[in-house]
């Protein structure tokens, strides 16, 4: 980029800086990978029913995520009972309060609350609806449901 008269030492310094930057980025990437492999599950926003089935029942407040099982919603006044499934395991949930608009059977849901160790029922304080990554007009969704091309989503 500069005059070619004293290219020698300049090129060397340039290359040195290039390797320094690449080396530093490599080290940073390695450190990041190590940090994140240790972080693992700790950064996860919710547990799926299968995660809960694996270990002992947690006593602290947790988030439970999965799909609202088709046909599982039972209403009793302001209290609602439904089953969260990840297609492997299921957890029954009870909740009293206002539900988000997108809460419906066959859709993703995240419940915050505690697992009752005696009954295995999850008592939720908050319910969040999860949206999946498929976007389509209602007519298309209706037509696809008829032909069975829409699974329950994820």
């Amino acid at each position, binding site marked *: 980029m500069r005059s070619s008269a004293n290219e020698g030492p300049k090129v060397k310094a*340039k290359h040195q800086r290039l390797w320094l*930057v690449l080396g530093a980025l490599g080290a940073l990437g390695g450190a990041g990978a190590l940090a*994140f492999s240790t972080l693992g599950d700790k950064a*996860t*926003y919710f*547990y799926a029913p299968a995660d809960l089935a694996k270990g002992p029942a947690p006593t602290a407040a947790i988030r439970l995520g999965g799909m609202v099982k088709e046909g599982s919603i039972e209403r009793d006044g302001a209290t609602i009972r439904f089953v969260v499934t990840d297609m492997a395991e299921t957890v029954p949930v009870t909740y009293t309060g206002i539900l988000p608009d*997108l809460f419906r059977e066959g859709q993703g849901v995240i419940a915050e609350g505690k697992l009752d160790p005696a009954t295995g029922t999850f008592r939720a304080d908050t319910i969040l*609806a999860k*949206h999946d990554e498929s976007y*389509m007009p209602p007519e298309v969704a209706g037509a696809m449901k008829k032909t069975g091309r829409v699974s329950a989503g994820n």
Partner: protein
Amino acid sequence: MHRYANPARFLKIARVATPIVALLGLALTAAGLWIGLFNSPPDYQQGESVRIMYVHVPAAWLGAGGYLSLAIASATALIWRHPLATIAARAIAPAGAAFTAICLVSGALWGKPTWGTYWVWDARLTSMLVLLFLYLGYLALSASEAEKGGEGRAAAILALVGVINLPIIKYSVEWWNTLHQGSSISVVNASSKIAPELLTPLLLSVAGFSFLFAAIVLMRMRAMLAQQRIEARSRRLAEALA
């Protein structure tokens, strides 16, 4: 690349390119938003609130893409000491920060009716907030360095360190369970889970936002070069008078 690092040559090209890029950006953004907001169907689940996507997704991509270009400009400034690279980096940072902020705010407004909350600390939302903080940190550091007449080396290093956040943002929805949904569009597989009626306005506004971003960067770079020239001229004048 070295050829265009010359500020005089850059200015000559930028003077012609700026209005073209800006008009393209305005036209494509207007088309994308007009179709997206008024002439496209609602989503089967979210209803009308899906239209926030036509602002949210382009803003998110440019927030992250802007950071990548900030990092490339910073690396170029550190390694090759190109006079234009630092100026490019300083021009990119506020635009990228603005798009990241738009992404966070529009996402919160979408989250309330869809999820039932404005904000959660899941991996995607948190890493996007970290991106905004990285931009703000870069802006503060480079402003203080520029004030002291420095080359902005510390800010460039900060920009490079922050690059580690980009793959975290991208893969956060795969590595961890998040409230945020996974990617709908895969550039690698050239596939999308968005119906064509909704995808067309989205791609239009992505293109429009990208050209607008480029126009903002070009305008800021030209303004910064002009300012440098004025400062140099007044310095010379002051020396001549002294």
